[in-house]
């Protein structure tokens, strides 16, 4: 097969990946998420299956039998726990806006920079071997396709002729372009995820195709293949652990390592946590992903057995997937299988390098650059471009590190052995991650110590001896132990032998790692920040109510800050504040610009004065991440709070009003009770008043009826006269009661006309002249010639004067009665005063006399005559005439009733 065909197919395939990623990103920009789907999520998780799975498992099976399966059973076993654990990690990560496993660990232990650097170094150094086997597999694949059976590829004389070098260059440029097309603050790359999911399908289909070809094309199904395998000694050995030399302990450790790897490998963390679009995808992925692993592993053993039976030692077992179809003349299938393996390698490299470059740039390069020379804060666009360049450089760096590793060390080992070195490195993160999720007491110091110890033991037991064997460093410590201490041999620590290097290294490194982590944690005190972060990680469900999370960005627009200020401080104050800021800092604020950190904190401080520091923090946090949903949410919450405060204020006001009302009601109640009492008194009085005349009428009528004959004329007349008088009294009483009812219901006097008050007074006095004379009371009116025009109803006003005169008559001194009537005009009012020389009115009674049903009782005078309604009626009538009535009195010196009425505005009448 020609090299150009292989390269052409690879390039065509890569173009297809670009197309998929481009299309998905395009749709994502329009708000349609293709990857927001549980099956896509599960398929993207299958980035776990790399060239290791595609080529390496077969090679592993030829030496280790079924032990290759341990790598897939670990993830399968962990899958049931995803429901709790992965969900928890995702919720925490979305809540904390975590972008990598290094970020996760550093956040958990108090946002520690040290830990970020340590984890990044472990990840980068630990994963380099893993990347190197992908490069090796692709190089292998190309060489197998182009030089099959035509002798091994010629040994390159310089790296210019080394296909591995060109594969590295191609992969670096592909990853550089593909993984860093855009800078997303959440490190979400939908196009990448879609491409990876697509590659997972390609891997499964091509590998299964080869498997089916081998099992059912070359052999007659599983039964035939396995039966033939049992007949040969070398293949029969592959069918059991015992005969293939796998110890139970190493199997268990392998399962454990892969169990950790599925979550801790940087690319797995990136795909399953950072790129996760919804935790709702987890349940489906919990069975779809293990099913994928099962399907892709079914044919590994058959292919390995077939290769072993068909080929002699000349063909490397890692290439059986390609060489079996080639051997049997199915070149197209071999090419398809190469594309499958190429998929496996590229997806791993792209995701791993992207994840590592995020860590490397965020935790090492950017902090370093900032420290060296502060990156201009104004140049955000430049900053983003620069960050992407940093990412690309990191990717390039890592791939060439992997190339160097492969050239110097990796070439002597098979794919799986090298991959397991990386698995062991990733497993070093297990104690701090698991402890971080469930153990609140774990401290930053414990994590740092555990990781460093674990990393040193790992480095000492795995990569260093392999480098020594490759001749890079001195070999003596491998055979004689470090510093010639025989207990410190990297493959036999403490003199323990008989365990394969991976199991050995995994056991000791994890043991020391976990112990150190636990012991140091228990003996150190966590910082405040570390404590709050610990609580947030361990009890994340306390902090997150829903299962959904928002995607947040990390930049604040000046426009948003303004909107927030406007909302809480009002436009005038906002403008004043911002112009102050502009003048003071000599800057011009543009709404579309991104706010600098000091502006954000300035706004926060200004807000804190208005809505409190905590609320200001929440509001600014939400804006600072420029998330419209979250901002709205926060606004809504704060508005509600504000409303609640307003409500409580209104409630307080209402409460005040209620108190006043209650007070008024209490007063009214007291008044009502008094009135009620007065009414009861009045009724007693009225009934008494009614009964007295009725009794006398009845008695006299009876006498006249019974003794009509015996009574003389004079007597009869007198009796009849009394009956008439008493009847008059009754009707008067009834009239007055009726008057009150009228006054209550009536509108102000209907027929108002212009009247002369003097004339009315004279008329009224005329009416009572008879009584005055009878009682020998002297009545004076001064002056009688004054013109006092008022508006009113004549009859009513006469009634007023008569009422007052009758009152004065009633209370006048019995021997020398005297009534003085004064008339005068002052300003726009007329005054009418009527003074008697009676006993006067006690002070406490003066308020009551104008109320209805009031009658004054006095010891000297006994029960007065009348109904207790006269003054009430008088007052009402005066009020209907827009006037007022008042009383002046000194006990023993008579009483003065004064009526004040407004002067008529009309043209004066002719003088009377």
């Amino acid at each position: 097969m020609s090299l150009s065909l292989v390269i052409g197919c690879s390039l065509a395939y890569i173009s297809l990946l670009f197309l998929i990623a481009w299309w998905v990103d395009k749709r994502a920009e329009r708000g349609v998420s293709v990857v927001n789907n549980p099956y896509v999520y599960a398929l993207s998780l299958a980035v776990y299956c790399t060239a290791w799975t595609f080529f390496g498992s077969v090679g592993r099976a030829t030496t280790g039998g079924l032990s290759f399966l341990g790598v897939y059973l670990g993830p399968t076993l962990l899958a049931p726990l995803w429901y709790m654990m992965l969900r928890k990690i995702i919720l925490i990560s979305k809540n904390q806006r975590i972008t990598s496993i290094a970020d996760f660990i550093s956040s958990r232990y108090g946002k520690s920079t040290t830990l970020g650097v340590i984890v990044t170094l472990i990840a980068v150094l630990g994963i380099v071997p893993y990347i190197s086997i992908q490069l090796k597999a692709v190089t292998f694949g190309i060489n197998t396709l182009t030089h099959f059976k035509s002798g091994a590829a010629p040994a390159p004389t310089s790296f210019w002729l080394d296909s591995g070098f060109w594969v590295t260059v191609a992969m670096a440029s592909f990853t550089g372009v593909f993984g860093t097309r855009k800078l997303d603050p959440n490190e979400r790359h939908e196009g990448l995820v879609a491409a990876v999911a697509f590659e997972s399908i390609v891997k499964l289909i091509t590998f299964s195709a080869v498997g089916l070809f081998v099992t059912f094309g070359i052999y007659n199904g599983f039964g035939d293949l396995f039966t033939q395998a049992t007949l040969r000694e070398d293949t029969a050995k592959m069918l059991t652990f015992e005969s293939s030399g796998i110890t139970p302990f190493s199997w268990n450790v392998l399962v454990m390592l892969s169990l950790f790897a599925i979550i801790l490998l940087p690319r797995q963390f990136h795909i399953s946590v950072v790129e996760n679009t919804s935790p709702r995808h987890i349940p489906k992925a919990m069975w779809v992903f293990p099913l994928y692993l099962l399907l892709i592993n079914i044919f590994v053993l058959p292919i390995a057995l077939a290769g072993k039976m068909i080929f002699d030692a000349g063909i490397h077992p890692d290439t059986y997937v390609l060489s079996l179809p080639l051997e049997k003349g199915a070149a197209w299938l071999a090419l398809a299988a190469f594309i499958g393996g190429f998929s496996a390698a590229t997806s791993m490299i792209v995701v791993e390098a992207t994840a590592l470059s995020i860590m490397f740039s965020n935790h090492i390069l950017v902090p370093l650059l900032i420290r060296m020379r502060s990156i201009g804060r104004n140049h955000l666009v430049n900053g983003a471009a620069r960050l992407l360049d940093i990412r690309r450089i990191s990717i390039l760096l890592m791939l060439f590190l992997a190339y160097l590793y492969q050239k110097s060390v990796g070439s002597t080992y098979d794919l799986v052995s090298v991959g397991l070195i990386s698995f062991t490195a990733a497993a070093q993160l297990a104690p701090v991650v698991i402890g971080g999720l469930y153990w609140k007491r774990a401290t930053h110091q414990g994590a740092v110590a555990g990781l460093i110890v674990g990393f040193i033991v790992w480095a000492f037991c795995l990569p260093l001896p392999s480098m020594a064997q490759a001749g890079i460093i001195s070999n003596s410590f491998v055979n004689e132990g470090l510093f010639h201490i025989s207990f410190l041999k990297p493959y036999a620590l403490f003199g323990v032998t008989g365990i394969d290097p991976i199991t050995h290294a995994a056991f000791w490194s994890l043991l020391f790692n976990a112990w150190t982590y636990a012991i140091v944690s228990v003996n150190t005190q966590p910082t405040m920040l570390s404590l709050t972060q610990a609580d947030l990680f361990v009890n994340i469900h306390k902090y997150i109510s829903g299962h959904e999370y928002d995607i947040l960005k990390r930049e604040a627009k000046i426009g948003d800050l303004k909107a927030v200020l406007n909302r809480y401080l009002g436009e005038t104050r906002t403008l004043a504040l911002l112009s102050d800021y502009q003048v003071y800092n000599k800057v011009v604020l543009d709404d579309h610009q991104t706010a600098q950190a000091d502006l954000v904190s300035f706004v926060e401080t200004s807000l804190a004065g208005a809505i409190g520091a905590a609320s200001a923090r929440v509001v600014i946090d939400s804006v600072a991440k420029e998330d419209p949903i979250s901002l709205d949410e926060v606004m809504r919450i704060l508005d509600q709070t504000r409303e609640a405060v307003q409500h409580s204020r209104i409630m307080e006001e209402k409460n005040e009003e209620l108190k006043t009302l209650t007070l008024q009601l209490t007063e009214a109640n007291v008044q009502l009770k008094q009135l009620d009492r007065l009414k009861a008194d009045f009724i007693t009085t009225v009934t008494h008043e009614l009964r007295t005349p009725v009794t006398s009428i009845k008695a006299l009528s009876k006498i006249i009826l019974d003794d009509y004959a015996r009574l003389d004329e004079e007597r009869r007349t007198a009796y009849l006269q009394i009956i008439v008088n008493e009847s008059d009294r009754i009707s008067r009483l009834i009239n007055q009661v009726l008057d009150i009812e009228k006054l209550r219901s009536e509108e102000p006097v209907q027929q108002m006309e212009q009247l002369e008050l003097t004339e009315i007074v004279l008329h009224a006095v005329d009416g009572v002249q008879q009584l005055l004379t009878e009682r020998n009371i002297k009545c004076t009116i001064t002056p009688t010639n004054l013109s006092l025009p008022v508006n009113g109803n004549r009859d009513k006003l006469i009634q007023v004067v008569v009422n007052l005169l009758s009152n004065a008559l009633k209370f006048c001194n019995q021997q020398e009665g005297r009534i003085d009537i004064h008339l005068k005009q002052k300003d726009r009012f007329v005054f009418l005063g009527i003074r008697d020389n009676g006993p006067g009115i006690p002070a406490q009674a003066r308020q009551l006399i104008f109320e209805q049903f009031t009658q004054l009782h006095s010891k000297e005078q006994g029960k007065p005559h009348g109904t207790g309604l006269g003054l009430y009626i008088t007052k009402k009538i005066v009020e209907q005439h827009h006037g007022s009535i008042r009383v002046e009195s000194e006990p023993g010196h008579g009483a003065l009733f004064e009526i004040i009425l407004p002067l008529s505005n009309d043209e004066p009448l002719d003088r009377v």
Partner: protein
Amino acid sequence: MADDRSSQLIILFLVFVVLLNAPILQIFDRKELWFGMPALYFYLFFIWLVLIVVVGLIVRKKRK
């Protein structure tokens, strides 16, 4: 109930950790063919499939 499912899944994890590790695994480490397949190969894939089905059923229950 979410709690029920969590407990079921944890128990499932523990049971299958035992089933898929030594020493239980050594019971099936035999040089025999079962249904035309090596005993260990058959056992591992069979248990694997059972695990997938059971997880699928437990997860599926919640939709009801």
